């Protein structure tokens, strides 16, 4: 556990990762990617795309059906003390008080616990440490769960829809806390979410899951730069050298999101898409080819263990 002292450049790497639950279609299927350290990565995808499964696999809560996942340079189970995981339903012990929950965090993470940090997150929500978890609202519970996650001083945070049940103000506040903490300590964050606005502000990296694989992966700026939103008169065939992700007729012309290959021809107005446009186009076109930037492509050499 102590041998890996140098910070690995890769926080999370999946290679041919697959997870099947019984006879249902695979939740993850041949999923390969690499998440460099220090990135705040958004995990996006339609419902049932395997986001929660991927996060649980990385947290060492599930065993993959096949393939490997490497977390902070080792097997997921070996890095338990250095990762924090926030499940979608924010499980906490209802019979404990907030103070007792945090004390449990201290007891179960004796080597890393930062009591002041955890207490601060709770205080920001005006929560009484003596109140029981049972009596808290969903949002308050999320805050306690996040305090437990941050108090651990993790190197990698795996957050499954962390802000889903918070009101807009609390969400803004908590996101701020989370991001400040991550920036201060260089924490890698992988968080799934449906709220694109929240992602655009906070994240600098994107993993789009679809059909059990990564369909789009890389720095958000790089991904946006690789795509162009074109408008003009013509047919999708006129955009031939480029990869057309999605095209729609708009008025008398055509609007298309393309992955550029060289220069865009005459007669097309071009603009860089927003993150929302990029995501929606890919979600609407599940058959579009995958794109992973070099930093996010899994190295086949790393497939050991």
């Amino acid at each position, binding site marked *: 556990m102590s041998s890996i002292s140098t910070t690995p450049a890769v926080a999370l790497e999946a290679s041919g990762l697959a997870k099947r639950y019984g006879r249902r279609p695979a939740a993850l299927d041949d999923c390969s990617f690499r998440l460099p350290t220090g990135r705040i990565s958004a995990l996006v995808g339609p419902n049932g795309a395997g986001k929660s499964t991927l996060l649980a696999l990385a947290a060492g809560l599930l065993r993959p059906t096949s393939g490997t996942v490497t977390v902070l340079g080792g097997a997921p189970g070996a890095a*338990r003390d250095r990762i924090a*995981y926030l499940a979608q339903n924010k499980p906490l012990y209802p019979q404990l008080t907030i103070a007792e929950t945090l004390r449990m965090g201290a007891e179960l993470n004796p080597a890393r616990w930062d009591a002041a940090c955890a207490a601060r997150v709770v205080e920001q929500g005006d929560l009484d440490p003596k109140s029981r978890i049972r009596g808290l609202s969903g949002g308050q519970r999320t805050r306690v769960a996040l305090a437990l996650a941050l108090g651990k001083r993790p190197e990698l945070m795996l957050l499954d829809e962390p802000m889903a049940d918070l009101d807009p103000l609390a969400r803004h506040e908590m996101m701020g806390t989370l991001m400040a903490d991550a920036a201060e300590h260089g924490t890698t964050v992988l968080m799934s979410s449906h709220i694109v606005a929240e992602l655009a502000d906070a994240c600098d990296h994107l993993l789009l899951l679809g059909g059990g694989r990564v369909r789009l992966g890389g720095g958000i700026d790089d991904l946006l730069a690789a795509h162009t939103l074109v408008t003009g008169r013509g047919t999708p065939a006129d955009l031939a050298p480029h990869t057309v992700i999605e095209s729609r007729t708009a008025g008398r012309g055509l609007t298309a999101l393309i992955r550029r290959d060289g220069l865009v021809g005459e007669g097309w107005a071009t603009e860089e898409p927003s993150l929302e446009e990029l995501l929606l186009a890919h979600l609407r076109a599940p058959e579009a080819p995958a794109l992973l930037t070099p930093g996010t492509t899994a190295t086949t050499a790393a497939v050991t263990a």
Partner: protein
Amino acid sequence: MSATTLAKAPAAVERPAPRGLVRSVLRLHRTALWIWLAFVAFTAGLLLWLTGPGADATARQLERFGYGGGVMEAAYSTDTLFYFTSGAYNDLFYDPDTLITLASFAVALFAGGPLIARELESGTAQLAWTQSVSPARWLTAKLAVPAAFVVVGTGLLTLLYRQLWSAHSNLLIAGIGPRSLYFSLGPATVAAPLLGLALGTLIGLAVRRTLPALAFSGFAYFLVHAFRGNHWPFQGRYQQPDLSSRSHAITSTGAEISDPGCYTDKACLAGHDVVRFTREYLPSSDYWPRQLLETGVLLALTAVAVALAFGLLRRRAATG
């Protein structure tokens, strides 16, 4: 009694897991632990009372009138609808046994439901596994802490019960009752709830939902209980001879004669010059072979259930 239980139990499990994990388990299940301690204290109190003041009246009856006029009369004079509430010494004598049996069932249900399945169902187990605690260490603590309480608690009660047996078993009405109690008290009394704990844990891990796990754990322990009661090498509740006992009437010269059959007739007793009666159950030579075999079988099944539970956990969750 409860103080020694409290002091002893944590010490037994401190070694393998960090103290924090043990403290967390104690805090999570403190209600159950308090109930357990209350049960142990109450039952121990009942046993001590039965050994001491509770037996006085019936013991005096036995001494004056012997088995027929003393013990039988004392047992039947207060009979009510429900034998266990009659207040007769013969009935009260078996109440701790009933309580221990119920508690053993409760241990199995607790292990299946709140200890394991509820945590898996609500996701709090996964919360623990993503702290610096591996699933295997988590399960170890979950098993070791209750096991320590069960062993110390039932061990203490069994010792007190054996003491009560040697002091006052002569006040029991002969039949399958004394035999069954005699053969069920011993190391196996401690091993049975341990098997319940292990079976409940295994079922909780396999089923992962609270209500079905409760039902299956209860059924599993019912099988254990039924098997203990009716099968060789276990005690055998039916079709077995009574325990041998020895009764004497003692005359004023100190001679031991057989019971003259006077019942409660004082004139008759005086006529036979009987001043007091004695009675005792003779120890059975097959007590230890049966007890040790039963304990061995129960502990072996416990070990199998624990091994299966760890195997199941390893298959479900990632590396331990």
